[in-house]
């Protein structure tokens, strides 16, 4: 039971607004000590895992390119492109991006989009430009940008599990093998399809609803 103290540290630390990195490291220390591990072993376990998961942080290598393109007018150009498209609304644009993100993720191409790669430089400014045209001013920018980032996440999460070689599929296969249950990745990925379709319907409907609200705000 004592090892659950680490979970309490996480929840409490977040509520009290301590620095999250500090909360995480304290939680690791509390959990390890509660389990009777010696401090050096806890530090070594944490350090080893940190080294093994560096690929998570590698994506920031795109920032120099994205930053440079923004200073060369990428966001301005993206807005101008949308301004010329007839019938482009923030909601319809994001429905299109949702479909693109789900289909590419289902093909295993999860790194094609993302907050740094596509949302900040392209998708958010395009959606914002369309929304400004719908409303007539920039008052809804915050909501539209947040929705662009949300659309990227929904598309990724409920597309990627259709691909057979994604991490989560391999994790499920590995865990079930531990119980003597042998499964092919394909069997798991097929069962990601119903939820993917419903995710598209729910989030897509919300995006079209966003268009209606933007229209009314005019």
């Amino acid at each position, binding site marked *: 039971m004592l*090892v*659950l103290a*680490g979970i309490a540290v*996480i929840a409490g630390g977040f509520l009290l607004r301590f*620095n*999250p*990195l500090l909360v*995480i*490291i304290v*939680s*690791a220390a509390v*959990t390890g000590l*509660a*389990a009777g*591990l010696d401090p050096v072993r806890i530090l070594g*376990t*944490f*350090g080893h*895992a*940190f*080294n093994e998961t*560096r*690929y*998570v*942080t*590698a994506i920031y*290598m795109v920032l*120099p*390119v994205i*930053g*440079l*393109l923004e200073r*060369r*007018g990428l966001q*301005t*150009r993206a807005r101008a492109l949308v301004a010329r498209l007839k019938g482009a609304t923030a909601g319809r644009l994001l429905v299109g991006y949702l479909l693109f993100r789900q289909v590419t993720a289902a093909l295993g*191409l999860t790194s094609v989009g993302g907050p*740094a*790669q*596509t*949302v*900040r430089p392209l998708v*958010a400014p395009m959606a914002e430009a369309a929304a400004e045209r719908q409303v007539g001013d920039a008052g809804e920018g915050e*909501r539209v940008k947040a929705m662009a*980032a*949300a659309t990227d*996440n929904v598309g990724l*999460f*409920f597309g990627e599990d259709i691909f057979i070689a994604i991490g*989560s599929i391999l994790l499920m296969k590995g*865990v079930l093998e531990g*119980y003597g249950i042998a*499964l092919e990745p394909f069997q*798991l990925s*097929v*069962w990601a399809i*119903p*939820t993917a379709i419903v*995710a598209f319907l*729910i989030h897509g409907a919300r995006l079209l609803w966003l268009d209606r609200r933007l229209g009314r705000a005019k």
Partner: protein
Amino acid sequence: MIGLDLVYGVAGAVFAIFAVSSVRDRRWANAAFHGLIALSFLAGNRLGDIANGVLVLALVGIAASGRMRRAEPAPPAEDRYGARVFAPALVIPATAVLGTLAFKAFPGWVDPKQATLVALTIGTLVALGLCAWLLRARLHEPIVAGRGLIDDIGWVAVMPQMLASLGAVFALAGVGEVVGRLIGAVIPAGSVFGAVAAYGIGMAVFTIVMGNAFAAFPVMAAAVGVPLLIRGAGGDPAIVAAVGMLAGFCGTLLTPMAANFNLLPAALLDLKDRYGVIRAQVPTALPLLAFNIALLYLMIA
């Protein structure tokens, strides 16, 4: 064979350049933070576990000191290159797609497990080349601009990696078994719906706490999925596992612990509300969680 060495080499070089550039502007805390990340990328395998742990402690110390500064506001964009600016922006995803397919079709050169990351790295290098050629970028420009972005992201940049490492400590300490016993004790005996709901909601809640459905799945599989749903109620293991994981993903949409998905875009998009992206996701995540539980129940009962 080309693999993570190339990816980490390029990522390490980028962070090392950020560090040097920060030193020149006397932004010491940012310089130390980026320098340590560069060290981790370039020499992590040679440091050993304890030294890597100390490196993490140093990163946390810098972040918690509150001395890391955000970027100075960028000068207004110069918009005289027209549609040419799209070329490097599109070359990154295009190379990621084509490279992944090509590396899988012609194995031998590139580690197939890392095909997308390697392709993304190559795409980034090609895009930098295009920036120099089409947009007449000089060397310092992408460095300054990129540093502006990473300084706005700040310490959130390493939070996902930290959470993954916390998961390793949790696994070693046996947190999963304890949570599993607790949840198992709450479910009314013989109730399939109770077990399905506890499994789905448990996946979402544990994901909210840990920020990652990968950490929740082994716990909930051990507690409910395998003993009650697969062995007890005779559910198809593929459905129990796949739909359970997707219920966990609904939790990922709801939690600030999933920093790279929920806090990072809020920082990148300059949202006033740190939790703006999570708020935008709640009305999608909750009905979808309900759907997953209902689907699982219909397929088992």
